[in-house]
Structures are given as structure tokens and as C-alpha cells.
């Protein structure tokens, strides 16, 4: 990271987020929940609104000027995604509804094609349910089993045994890039190299990674890389499946319908190539264009500047939270993104969540769709604060005093 970077002008940035001026229960809202869903800046909202107002029609349909225009915007957004994650071709960028749908797509096409009875799917101990359940369903269907890469008490994967966990029966490794609960940044590149050495393809769940760090799928050598628009300052309802072209071409289609066919007769249908093969039906056009605008917005701010700024917030928050007696941070990995889960002795995370809410502080309390992580750390739930590039050190301080107030109340 260059020290020559100009810091972000957060005061100016905050003006792009109208929600940040809201008042909750008489207090200015402090939005520390970007890991649940990022806020969309005005340029994104305006771009989507312009599409719906002035440009709305369908894509890949007919010869009308409007349809061509919409198709161009839609495909330009795909190109923005390609460039953003360093993919080689736009054919490798498949639109989905989100991370979850992208993983289900891979499980039900690539997975069904490759996993047989007795095979193994290897996952990490810190996966989100989205990267567990689709594989569990597939394993049940095929008579395959799931194996798990363990983690230590700091929330770092224990990779000593990785070469033993990968066997001749391993058909896929599913790996979260950044843990949504612990904030851990996993050494994805290293793990992929070790999996590839054994001929095992890797799917990376990048939902929490893309908002915080620069991702280059070719440098990582990922076979599949998936993420959601709404964690990336974009809208809900849109997500991305990156797949190596060779794999996408070998995979069968998923949903059948319009937009994915080459030719249909009563006897037989032939399909288009990737990505169209996986995009049956009318897509979320405004959302895709919105995601393109979000990528423009983040690129203009500078991903490295965002990462540096968020890292400072994380360090500040960690330092302040660690000083609160009775508070325990879950996830103390050396490499972390700006996500902090914590528990406080004697206060259930849901009570903490409600009390923080009373102070206008928006956090997530719950199991974060990662119940095996809760079990691993022997807690029913945690409270999680996540920091984005529009948050400030002052907001971190509001969180800290609100937690201290809650502790006082429960004394």
C-alpha cells in the first residue's frame, strides 16, 4: 500500500449517502452494518433511476433502438465487472441474483456433473451457510461427503493438514475469501495453489472480500469466484459468478427458458455459450447497471485508499473495544477486514443489538448465517459491527460508548 495515497474525503463521501443523515430514536444513525448490506451512494441510485425512467425495456430482444441501448448498458456493466476482478473475458462473467444463487448454480451444474457417490467436497470451518447448504444438498443427492478445514481460536484456518484433507476423492474446495463473522482474510491464493497441485478446482465466496480488497481472479487462479452487488455499494438482486471459461463451457445449463437458447424445436433445444447459457429469463437489468455504477464509484475512490481507510477504522475500533472489560472479540486473525464480532459477558447479543439500536447504532446481532462458526466458538450468537469507507472514527466512538452504557444497564 502506497504511503503517497491521498486520504479519502469522508465528509464529502458521506453526502452521497442520504440514509446517513437519518435520525433513529432521536439519535443520528450510525450505520455499522455494511457486512449485512452496503449502502448505495447517490450516483448508483440515480443511474438505476435514470434507467427505469428513461431507458427501461428488455435486453437481448429485437431490433429496437431502446432494446439495443439497454443491452449496451447491461453488457457494459458486465465489462466493468470483468475488469474489476481481472477476468480474461466477459464470457466468464455470469449474472446471478447474488452469491447464494451463484453457488447453487455451480453446485447444480458443475457439482452434479463431477461429484459421484463416495466423493468428497472440502469446505472451510468458517463458511457462510450459502457455501455449505448447496454442497450438503448435493452430497445428499449423490452420496458424497463434506469435509472441513479446521480453524484455530484466532479464527485462522489450520492449513497444516490441508494436504491430508485433499484426497483422490475430493471434487471441489469451497472457500470463503473474507469471513463475514470473523473478518479473517484467508490466504486464498496459497490454498488454491495447493488444491490445484492435486487437481482440485476451487470456488471462492468473495461476498465480503470485494468491498474491502482488490481481487484479481487470474492472479488468485480461482476456478469460480462469486459475490453480491449489495455488499459492494450496489443494489440487491444482482450478483456475479465468475468461472473459468473452460469450466463454464463444459457445464450444462441450469435454468431453461428464453435468452439461453440457440434453437428450439419440439424435438431438441440447443444452447448458447457462456454466459448466456446460465442466464435464462429476463435479468435484473437496472440492478446490473447499478452494480456497474457502484464499481465506477468505488474505482474512482480507489480500492487501495478504501482498504487503507477501513484498516485504520478497524485498528481504532479493535483498540477501543479491547479495552472494555468483559468484552471478547471473536476473530483475531493477523489478516482481517473491517468486521468485528464480539460478545459481552452477561449480555445476550440480541439485547446488545436492541440497546445499540436505541442509540441509533445499526449492527447485526445473530448467528450471521454461519451457525457452525457459532458452535466452534461456543456462543449462541454474536454482535457484529462492520465498517465501510463512509464510517468515521467518531462513529466507532459512539459504538464504544453505547456498549459501555449497555454494560452499565445490565450491571
Amino acid at each position, binding site marked *: 500500500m502506497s504511503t503517497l495515497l491521498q486520504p479519502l474525503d469522508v465528509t464529502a463521501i458521506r453526502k452521497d449517502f442520504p440514509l446517513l443523515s437519518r435520525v433513529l*430514536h*432521536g439519535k443520528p444513525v450510525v450505520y455499522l452494518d455494511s457486512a449485512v448490506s452496503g449502502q448505495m451512494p447517490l450516483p448508483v441510485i440515480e443511474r438505476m433511476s435514470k434507467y427505469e425512467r428513461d431507458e427501461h425495456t428488455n435486453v437481448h430482444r429485437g431490433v429496437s433502438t431502446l432494446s439495443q441501448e439497454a443491452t449496451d448498458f447491461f453488457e457494459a456493466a458486465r465489462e466493468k465487472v470483468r475488469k474489476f476482478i481481472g477476468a480474461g473475458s466477459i464470457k466468464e462473467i455470469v449474472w446471478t441474483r447474488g452469491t447464494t444463487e451463484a453457488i447453487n448454480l455451480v453446485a447444480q451444474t458443475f457439482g452434479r456433473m463431477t461429484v459421484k457417490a463416495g466423493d468428497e467436497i472440502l469446505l472451510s470451518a468458517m463458511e457462510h451457510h450459502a457455501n455449505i447448504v448447496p454442497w450438503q444438498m448435493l452430497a445428499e443427492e449423490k452420496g458424497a461427503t463434506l469435509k472441513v478445514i479446521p480453524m484455530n481460536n484466532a479464527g485462522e484456518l489450520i492449513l497444516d493438514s490441508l494436504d491430508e484433507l485433499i484426497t483422490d476423492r475430493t471434487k471441489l474446495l469451497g472457500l470463503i475469501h473474507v469471513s463475514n463473522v470473523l473478518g479473517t482474510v484467508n490466504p486464498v491464493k496459497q490454498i488454491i495453489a495447493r488444491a490445484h497441485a492435486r487437481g482440485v478446482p476451487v470456488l471462492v465466496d468473495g461476498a465480503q472480500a470485494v468491498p474491502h480488497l482488490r481481487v484479481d481472479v487470474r492472479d488468485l487462479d480461482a476456478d469460480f469466484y462469486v459475490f453480491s452487488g449489495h455488499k459492494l455499494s450496489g443494489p440487491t438482486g444482482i450478483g456475479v459468478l465468475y468461472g473459468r471459461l473452460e469450466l463454464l463451457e463444459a457445464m450444462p445449463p441450469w435454468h431453461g427458458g428464453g435468452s439461453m437458447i440457440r434453437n428450439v424445436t419440439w424435438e431438441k433445444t440447443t444452447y448458447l455459450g457462456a454466459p448466456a447459457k446460465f442466464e435464462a429469463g429476463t435479468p435484473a437489468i437496472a440492478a446490473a447497471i447499478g452494480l456497474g455504477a457502484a464499481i465506477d464509484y468505488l474505482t474512482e475512490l480507489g480500492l487501495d485508499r478504501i482498504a487503507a481507510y477501513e484498516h485504520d477504522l478497524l485498528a481504532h475500533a479493535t483498540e477501543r473495544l479491547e479495552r472494555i472489560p468483559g468484552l471478547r472479540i471473536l476473530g483475531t486473525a493477523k489478516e482481517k477486514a473491517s468486521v468485528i464480532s464480539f460478545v459481552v459477558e452477561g*449480555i*445476550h*447479543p*440480541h*439485547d446488545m443489538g*436492541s*440497546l445499540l*439500536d*436505541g*442509540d441509533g447504532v445499526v449492527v447485526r446481532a*445473530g*448467528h450471521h448465517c454461519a451457525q457452525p462458526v*457459532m458452535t466452534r466458538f461456543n456462543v*449462541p*450468537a454474536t454482535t457484529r459491527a462492520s465498517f465501510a469507507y463512509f464510517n468515521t472514527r467518531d462513529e466507532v466512538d459512539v459504538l464504544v460508548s453505547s456498549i459501555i452504557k449497555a454494560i452499565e*444497564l*445490565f450491571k
Partner: protein
Amino acid sequence: MSDPRELYQQVILEHNKKPRNFGKLEACTHHAEGHNPLCGDELDLTLIIENGLVQDIKFTGSGCAIDVASASLMTGAVKGKPVAEAEAMAEQFRGMVRGELEPGTQTPLLGKLTLFSGVKDLPSRVKCAVLPWATLHAALKGEEEASTE
């Protein structure tokens, strides 16, 4: 939306800290387990019912303050009462916290349990307050499990 902090009154905080009737009745006549999958609240309720009266009631489990205080106050409120009255209280309590009662409805059976009326403005917490009552209802009906799913 009301201020969530208003819910955390002293009585609720105190019952959370020192729950009444906490434990397990080995010689119980009725028993049910309650789960709140959203929060991970777990409740184990045991009762001794004789001659149509709730002679004794105890609970164990873990959960948020709203859940624990609700269970503590519930066990105190129904102990010694006829089963039919306990059922009626459960009905009124659920109506109150779900905001399903007609405006102006009196809830004479609930007494200090009306402390929980504020929960109706916090939809995400309604299930926490209701779990003990749903578990009681299940136990009285002879069901082993209750869920607020």
C-alpha cells in the same frame, strides 16, 4: 417505532439477572422444550399439575434478557393458578406482545406482565417474549416441543 431501551426496565433486568423458579422438576407431570431458532434461545419447562392446578413450575435454558425475564415472570404468574387461567393468560400475553388485541382491551389477568407490552413495537423481539408462553401452551397440550419459528 418505540425506543428499544424502554423495554429494558429494572424489573426485566432484575429477573434476567436473578430468574425465579429456575431449575427442573424431576417429578413433573408436564414438560416441553422451546426453541427460538432466530436467537438460539432454548427453554426447558417442567410442571406439576394436580387437580387442575399448576402446583409447581420451573424452567431452565439460556436466552436473551427478554426471554429469561419473560420465563421468570411467567412461572411466578401461573404458579398456583388453575390450568384454564394459565391458558387464558398465555392467550392474552401473546395477543398483547403481538399487538393483536383490540385497542382498549383489558388484560386483567396479566398484572405486571404488561411490562412486556412494549415488545409489540419491536417485531424482532416478539418471539423472545413469547417463547416461554408458547412452551407453556405446548406443555399443557401434552406436546414435547414448541418453536417460535
